[in-house]
């Protein structure tokens, strides 16, 4: 789950990271009022959960409250990479001497958190990593120890930070670490962390990604979820405990297990079709869940055929069959359906579906071929 810049910085500030004293505006008028209170030049920043808002014109520095209101008016109407801008952040404009990148993420291969710093902050850090890898300092943190002082020193030395800034940098690193740890983040990033013209460190922009697996124990953060991040169908799926991703093809898929779901998409493509979605009903799905999944698939008007591929292990074939039948009672549809059931209680499932006018298949290859044919036949 992505957090907005404003929420991320608010969390950082709770852990002692200095951030600008800005506020969120939802209307141009609010933006003008906030700018007036702040006084002086401000920066108006679109709050959207995609990168590249600067290049898209979603960030403007202005000198007066009136100009802030105008800028907010422009930005609040924008659509950045498909996402509507509903909020802007009004921060005081800061005189910047230099810009640092500072972030924590998980190094999966090393199975450790890694703290990353660079003196070349403010720009696209991935580009720096690609073109000047020596400018990126990586320091791993042992998960049993947590962030130690020497880790922070290694970062400070690595980016050749002036010794006068070490104490402030120490506080910021500790704060960012606590924010990362206590929020179950998979990314906590300050870019840029600026050295101001007044020679102070300030986190100008912030970003956090929260581990979806940990949302259950982060009730406060769960409330910060921005629904714009997902399509309505995806939201609906998430609430039903399904993993659903809408794609551009014409063959809807319902599969148990992420790997098998991907393999099913692959084989559809291999036999000349295009998958309309990724949908994993998970392990041990019951009839209710299956029905919800089918409804979501059929909402997609591009879908010209549905392929069920269920290999029973935890999931039982009869439960899946019951779910399909239940869903079909409430949804009138003439989309052809290909069913392939194998594994636990597959025979029982097939028996239940015998009268439901479905195309059946023994193997995955056969099922995929039949689904592609069915979609083309319409």
């Amino acid at each position, binding site marked *: 789950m992505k957090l907005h810049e404003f929420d991320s910085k608010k969390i950082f500030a709770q852990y002692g990271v200095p951030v600008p004293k800005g506020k969120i505006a939802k209307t141009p008028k609010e933006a003008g009022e906030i700018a007036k209170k702040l006084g002086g030049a401000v920066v108006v920043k679109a709050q959207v959960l995609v990168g590249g808002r600067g290049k898209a014109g979603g960030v403007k520095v202005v000198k007066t409250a009136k100009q802030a209101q105008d800028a907010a008016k422009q930005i609040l109407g924008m659509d950045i990479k498909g996402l509507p801008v509903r909020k802007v952040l009004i921060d005081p404009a800061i005189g910047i001497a230099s810009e640092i990148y500072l972030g924590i993420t998980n190094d999966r291969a090393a*199975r450790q958190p890694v703290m990353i710093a660079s003196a070349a902050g403010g720009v696209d850090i991935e580009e720096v990593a690609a073109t000047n890898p020596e400018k990126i300092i990586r320091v791993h943190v042992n998960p049993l120890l947590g962030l130690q002082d020497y880790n922070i020193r290694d970062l400070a030395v690595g980016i050749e930070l002036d010794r006068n800034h070490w104490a402030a940098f120490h506080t910021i690193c500790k704060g960012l670490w606590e924010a990362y740890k206590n929020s179950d983040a*998979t990314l906590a990033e300050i870019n840029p962390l600026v050295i101001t013209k007044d020679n102070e460190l300030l986190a100008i922009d912030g970003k956090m990604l929260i581990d979806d697996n940990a949302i259950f*124990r982060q009730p406060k953060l769960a409330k910060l979820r921005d629904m714009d991040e997902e399509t309505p169908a995806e939201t609906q799926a998430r609430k039903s405990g399904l993993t659903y991703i809408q794609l551009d093809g014409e063959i809807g898929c319902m599969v148990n297990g992420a790997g098998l779901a991907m393999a099913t998409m*692959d084989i559809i*493509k*291999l036999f000349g079709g295009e998958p309309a979605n*990724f949908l994993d009903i998970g392990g041990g799905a019951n009839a209710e869940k299956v029905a919800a999944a089918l409804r979501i698939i059929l909402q997609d008007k591009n879908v010209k055929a549905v392929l069920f591929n269920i290999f029973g*292990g935890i999931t039982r074939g009869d439960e899946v069959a019951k779910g399909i039948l239940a869903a079909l009672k409430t949804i009138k549809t003439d989309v052809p359906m290909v069913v392939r059931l194998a594994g636990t209680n597959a025979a029982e499932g097939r028996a239940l579906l015998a009268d439901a006018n479905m195309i059946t298949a023994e193997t995955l290859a056969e099922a995929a071929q039949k689904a592609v044919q069915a979609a083309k036949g319409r």
Partner: protein
Amino acid sequence: MGILADKNTRVVVQGITGNEGLFHSQRMLEYGTQVVGGVRPGKGGEWVLDGKVPVFDSVKVAVDATGADCSMIIVPLAAAADAMLEAADAGVRLIVCLTEGIPLQDMMRVRAYLDSKGVLLIGPNCPGLLTPGQTKIGFIPGDNAIPGNIGVVSRSGTLTYEVLYALKQVGMGSSTTVGIGGDPVKGLNFIDILQMFEEDPLTDKVVMIGEIGGSDEEKAAEYISKHMTKPVVGFIAGRAAPPGKRMGHAGAIVEGSAGGAEDKIAALTKAGVRVADYPEQIPDMLK
């Protein structure tokens, strides 16, 4: 005897009194697995599964009483990290954690601790392991597989069943099948299992099932080209997945240019692995 477990492996099931715990423990017993005990704090002293399996209050008590050397974990999400640490402290040799959805930071801590204790972990978020004809520890449907000389290692649960089923159709069997799970931070990984298969006298050929995300398959390819003499057939799920989208498994994120299906297939092919287009092709490629 399998690479990790056989008919003598003594298993305690953490979370045995839950619905899933009971269901799968029953199936394991039917398969012949030595389910010697279960753990449910506060229910120590009870018996489950028609009085066949005693329940203990802690893994330590269960291990002391039964001589178990393996723990299977099928507890609710919020209790899973604690369950793994408890099992490690109780002195089992092998932990098989089926529970899915464990937060990443928890797994980093758990894995670091287990490593310091020298305890092996399979999973989490995995279907477990199957030594056909001897023992099954986890979900893998036993009737899909017969004993044989093929080692199977997989990041995906149901894809594994699919492959075992396809093998069985043509009379081929597996020495050991390990579902390592799809989480980004886990226990035994491809390389660990491949090494065991290479050293296992009962394994002649290997099937490796990967998917998009991360770089474990690329590392496995490097390992195979350097250290493996036995033939390996591979499959990578996710060629049709669009970049940048999450496909259910936490690990299945195409991160920038790395971790894509084509890269993985290329790396495996370069290492001499024959890569199937779809799972049902695998039996033919093993002949």
